Every structure is written in structure tokens, then in C-alpha cells.
């Protein structure tokens, strides 16, 4: 049997072939049939709400009854000019950057380690590293806040006792350290999923290729560079997109641990939107404004992603190092 290189997660762009024959039409008919459930479900629960919220963005509306107060582009203009929005935007991006440049490489390193057949208790380590993912974000976030407390929290106690600092560090209450602390917690929480993605990617590297390389005398690093990485690169792009999307939507953690504070130092766009849409302390929620903010945010992230598309597409299709 010849070896076929499996690239299960690669997107293969295909051009349409030849004239349409009745047999092909019937085949396409089945395909369209198969697509109906997805179109219905996705259309109804993702596309329709999105379009509806574009519509709501044009109104000054509090979420109840029918929107009646048309304000045109006023909401959108306000969002684009609001310093608080841009601050939240950069914070959201900070989460993505942390996920891409810290979480992904670290997870890859550990995935390579946990993929080695000679390491005992691999499955146990994998389970432990994955555990934060399954915990309810709100609860585990609060537990960590308690551990990081400057007045008697465990972490500060250790730092003070070992003499690393002379004053307790106010991790979550000081505007300079709050965001980095949350970034670290977010990396900790999402690490398990990224690890699993990388493990899946690594396991698509065909064993016979690796064995062939070993027989040829290639060391660990050479095998990594010339066999593993090229195979894994297309999948890496997919993982990148997934991690990017997940980290942009970090909401539960921020809301539970700092609620965007202190002094909006950790405010991210989802908490910003939530505040205007649902915050009970607001006399009248500004749902229209929140929708506009959501639309603007979506467009901005789309633009940023598209800007990187040419660079990524090359890596995706070619798989060249």
C-alpha cells in the first residue's frame, strides 16, 4: 500500500469540473439536501440575529417592545468616537495576542512532549492540563481572585515570605497589573483546548515518515523541522483562527473576576456591550447602542483578519516551512 499523507483538517480549494451531467446534478441535489439543516439552523440562530442587530443599531431602543426611536448612524458614530470603546477594543486584542503568542507556542511545546511515546503517565498529564477548561469560568475565576488577594491571599503570602517582594502585589486591583493577570488566567483556562488541538495535529504526522527519518539518522530537531512542522502548518493556521476567535470573545472570565475594572482597566468589548445592553444599574438599557457596538467590533475584527489573509493563505495551501 502506498503511503498517503493524511491532512484531515486542510481546506482543499477545488475548481468545478467539466459540463454538468444528469448524474452530477443528482449528486449535487443530495449535497444541497444535506446542506439544508445547516442553513436552517445557522441561518436562524446566527445570521438572522446578526442582521436583526444591524437593524437595531439604527435605533435608540431599550430592548422591550418594538424599536421606534430611529437615530440613523448616531449610535455607530458614537461607538467609533467613544474612547471607552477603543480602550475595550485594545484590551480584547490583548487577550488575542496573549493567546496567539503565549498560549499557542507553549501548548505546542507541551503537545510535542506529551506526544512522545516514551513519557509515562502522558494521559494523566493531559487530563490535568485540560482540567481548567471544564471548570465553570465564573467560579474558578473567583477562586483565583481569592488566591491572589493582596490582604492575606496565598500567592502574596508566599511572595512576602520568600522575600520576593516587600509589599503585597495587588494583582487584580491595580490598573497596571490587572490586565496581565487576567491574560495569564485566560491562558491557563484555555490552554487545555489548544493542547488538544496540537496533539491532534501532531498525530496526523504519519508514523512511517518519522520512522524513515529515524532510520536515516535524523535527530529530534531535524525531524521536527523537516517533517513535523510542514505537516502541521496548515492545521496550525486553523488552530490560530480558532484560538483568535475564542480569545476575542472572552467575557465570562472578565465579568466574573473584575467586571471590567478597576477603572475599566480590564474592560473588553463583550463586557462593554453587556453593560449597555443588560446592566441592571442602567435606568434604561441601550440595546440599540450595544448592537451598534457589536456590529462595529465584528467589522473591525473581520478587517484585521482579512488583512492577514494573504499571508495565511500561502501557509495554508502550501504547507511550506
Amino acid at each position, binding site marked *: 500500500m502506498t503511503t498517503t499523507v493524511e491532512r484531515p483538517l486542510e481546506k482543499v480549494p477545488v475548481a468545478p469540473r467539466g459540463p454538468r451531467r444528469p448524474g452530477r446534478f443528482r449528486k449535487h441535489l443530495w449535497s444541497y439536501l444535506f446542506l439544508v439543516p445547516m442553513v436552517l439552523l445557522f441561518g436562524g440562530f446566527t445570521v438572522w440575529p446578526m442582521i436583526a442587530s444591524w437593524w437595531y443599531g439604527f435605533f435608540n431602543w431599550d430592548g422591550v417592545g418594538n424599536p421606534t426611536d430611529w437615530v440613523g448612524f448616531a449610535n455607530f458614530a458614537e461607538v467609533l468616537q467613544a474612547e471607552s470603546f477603543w480602550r475595550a477594543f485594545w484590551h480584547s486584542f490583548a487577550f488575542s495576542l496573549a493567546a496567539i503568542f503565549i498560549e499557542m507556542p507553549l501548548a505546542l511545546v507541551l503537545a510535542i512532549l506529551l506526544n512522545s511515546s516514551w513519557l509515562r503517565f502522558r494521559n494523566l498529564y493531559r487530563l490535568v492540563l485540560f482540567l481548567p477548561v471544564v471548570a465553570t469560568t465564573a467560579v474558578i475565576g473567583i477562586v483565583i481572585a481569592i488566591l491572589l488577594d493582596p*490582604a492575606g491571599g496565598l500567592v502574596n503570602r508566599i511572595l*512576602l515570605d520568600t522575600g520576593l517582594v516587600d509589599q*503585597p502585589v*495587588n494583582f487584580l486591583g491595580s490598573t497596571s497589573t490587572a490586565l496581565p493577570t487576567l491574560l495569564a488566567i485566560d491562558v491557563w483556562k484555555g490552554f487545555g483546548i489548544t493542547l488538544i488541538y496540537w496533539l491532534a495535529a501532531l498525530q496526523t504526522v504519519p508514523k512511517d515518515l518519522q520512522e524513515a527519518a529515524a532510520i536515516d539518522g535524523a535527530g529530534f530537531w531535524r525531524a521536527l523541522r523537516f517533517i513535523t512542522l510542514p505537516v502541521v502548518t496548515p492545521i496550525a493556521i486553523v488552530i490560530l483562527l480558532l484560538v483568535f476567535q475564542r480569545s476575542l470573545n472572552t467575557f465570562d472570565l472578565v465579568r466574573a473576576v473584575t467586571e471590567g475594572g478597576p477603572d475599566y482597566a480590564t474592560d473588553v468589548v463583550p463586557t462593554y456591550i453587556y453593560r449597555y445592553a443588560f446592566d*441592571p444599574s442602567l*435606568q434604561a438599557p441601550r440595546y440599540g447602542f450595544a448592537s451598534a457596538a457589536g456590529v462595529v467590533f465584528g467589522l473591525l475584527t473581520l478587517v484585521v483578519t482579512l488583512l492577514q489573509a494573504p499571508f495565511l493563505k500561502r501557509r495554508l495551501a502550501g504547507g511550506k516551512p
Partner: protein
Amino acid sequence: MKIRPALTVLTCAVALALSGCNLVGGSPDSGDAADKVTVTVALVPDPPGASEFYRQQFDEFETANPGIAVKVLENPSDQQLNAVELMFQQDNAPDVFRAQDDGMDRMAARGWVAPLDEFVTPEFLQRFPEGSMDPATSGLHRDGKLMSLPLVWGPWSTLRVFLYNEDLLKKSGFAAPPKTWAELEQMAGKVTADGKGKYFGYAPTAAKALGVEMLADTAVPYSVPATGIDYRTGKPATSSPGLVEAVELHRRMQAAKVMMPGWESWDGSRAFKEFAAGRLAMYPTPPWHVAEVRKLAPEIKMGITGLPTPAAGRSAYLPLAKSFSPLWSMSAKSTHKVESWKVMDFLASESFHNAYYKKFGTLTALEGAWKADAEKNPDQAAILKVAEETMRRAPNPALASKGGRAMTDALAAKPDLKHTDAAFSSIIKNQPFAPVAARLDKDLQSYLDKTSTDLKAKGQEGTAKDLTFAGWDPLKDYTPGG
């Protein structure tokens, strides 16, 4: 390998079939059993232990009223309003629901709150202290109609007391609590220094430095920290020296690291926990903390006194702007109004209020239910004394006129114009507050002007005049019309 997937599918199918009804759900009104009317009550699990308490109370109610079954719907506290709103939109509204303060106004504005006047009897009104149910000042009436029933004692919501740990103060050589802000600053500094990280002198109660507003209430009329407007003049007054000094006081203490670290992230309960653990010596607070401290540390030597005032002397008292805060409302869409009233009547009965007081230590709306016991309880007697000494009746534009209500609603819709965020920022960034306050005042003035113009254009009342009570002396009880 073949068996496992099949087993999985089978288990899933069975689980789904069994819970099939769960998926589709019954109709919202799963039918009242013959002769039995179900009244739905929507509330929140507050304070801890409330769920069991309410269920117990309603069970007793059901025994006494065999034709009525009470179904309790609990929502997470911060989602309660949204949840009830969505239920109304679903035509599935609860019959009785808990909506406090602004929340009740929001519901009323949508036409979802039923006026209760048709059910009220003179006997019912007699349960409440004399004059407290007057439509002009009760806090429960809108446009002369009774819209809500209260749970807690009127002053309970706006009273603020100052707690101090006698032992910790004594350790640093202080025999009495601070009477002025200067004393507070000095004492807090010494206690924190003596505490060496094990305990601290002072904390501003919760995140966003709530302590500032509380202390400022002794230096400026209450409306200034609450809304930014001075109700004596109807003009923005965030730059009032009293408020600015309150902020600067905290800013100095923050810079000197006197306040307990981490307060910037504290929720509403952290302060009393730290106090009860003996790690915090002094802080200003709403009175419900007292019972919580006592529960956690029954033996602690807790002192309860009035808030410290500026060294130059007191300029204002804590406000008593209305008799009660609204809590329980009846749905205008309820199909069982008579039975719902019976439930609400129960919730406003002496037996219920007595039970609530006994369980949670809260002073409830019906004074008769707890007055005698409270005077015997040293903590509560102290609270009552502070209320008597440091509260005065104050004007309330929202109750005084339609225009006043419109203006206060508009102000409430713009929380960023309030001093809180700016003050907090000054405190933690160690920047002067006065320039920021001046800017806020300017923004407030333009917002007030804009709101008046908008209201006028819509043919509604509302100007700065509605926020002006020229004859008001914050050092005396306010009487409307004088």
C-alpha cells in the same frame, strides 16, 4: 469498538426519550388544578438562606389559604429585572415580582405594574407607621397610586453607620472612634502602621470607593454625591468643597497605603468579612452589615456610631427622602389579582416581617414587628440611635413633581456623569479631583439643559427648577412647602 458507539447512541436515545418532555416543555400555564389557583412569585436568592426561608413562609401561607398554591421563581440577582421583562414579553409573567427602586419604575413605565389601591383597606394601612403611606412621600406611590409594597424599614436603605473594632483601636491607644475626618485619617494611619500587614485601619467599603459618598453625605447635601446636583440651587455642584475633600481624603490614604489593600476589587460582602475576622478596624457601611458581622463573629467588640464629619463641622445629614423603598409589585397582566393580593398582603403582614427580622436581622417595614426586640438588642439599638441622630427628612424631586421625576430619570440614565468613576480614578491614580469635578459640572449643566429642551419639545415637563428646593436647610428636617 463496535459495541461502545452503539451503546453510546442507545444511552443517548434513552436519556433523550425520558426527558423528551424536558425538551419540548409543557405549556406555560400547566393548568391550575380544579379550585386551586397558582400564584407565581418571582424573587431573588437574597440574603443567603432566603430560598428556604421564603419556601417555608409560603408553605405556611398555603396551609392558611388552602385555595392558593404559591410557585416561587428564583432568578440570579443581577438578572432579575431582565428575566421578568422577558417573561412579560413572552406573555408568561409572574403574578407578583420583586422589583426595587429604579427597577420598579422601569416596570411601571412599561405599564406592567398593577396599582394596588383597590385592594387596600384602612386596616391594612394601619399596619404602617402614621403618615408613612401618604402618597406624596411614601416612595411607593406613582401619580397618587400605590404601586409597590416595601420589605425594609424606610431609613434602612439610606442609613449609613460607622463600624469600628474597639479592641484594635485600643491597641493603638485610641479609646473612642473618630469624630472628624482629620481624626479618621490620623487614627487609620496609626492602626495600619501598628498592624504591620496583619490588620488595617480603614477601607472604603467596596470597589469604586463607596466610602467617599458616605462620608461626603455629612459635608454636602445628599443630592450632590448622589446625582451631582445641589437640590438647593438646581445646579451641578460636584466641585463642592465637601465632596472634593472627601475624595482627597481617600486619595491621601491610598497614597500613604493606609487603606486595606485589594479594596478596589471588593464586592459587597468583603468588608464585613474582613471586619469580622479582625483584619479591618473601621469602615462606613449600610446597616445590614452589622447583622452579618455578628453572625460571623458573635463575640467581637463592634462599635456602631455615626459617620465622622469634617473638622469644620457637619454641613448635612443623611437623607430620609421617602418613607419606604419599593420591593414587591403585582403584575398588571395577572389573571389572579385577588389571590395575588392575598400573597402580597401576607408579605406585608406582621408575622412575615417578624419572621424575616428574626431570621436575617433586618429591620423591616412594619416597625411593630421588631421595635420591642430591637431596643433590647445592643447592636440594633445602636443602629436606631444613629438613625435618630444623623438622619433628617430631605426633599425628593422624583416624588415632588412629574418634571422632577423626568429629570431624575434622565440623570440616572447617565451614570458616567456621577462622581463615582471619576473619584475612583483620582484615588487610585493619585491625581487631584477638583479639575475633574469642574469638568463634570460643565458636562452636567449641558446635559441638564439638553434634557430640558428635549422634554419641552416632547411636550413634557422637566427643568432645573424641578430640582430646586430653595428653602431647604440640610441641617433640619425638610417639610414640603416650607
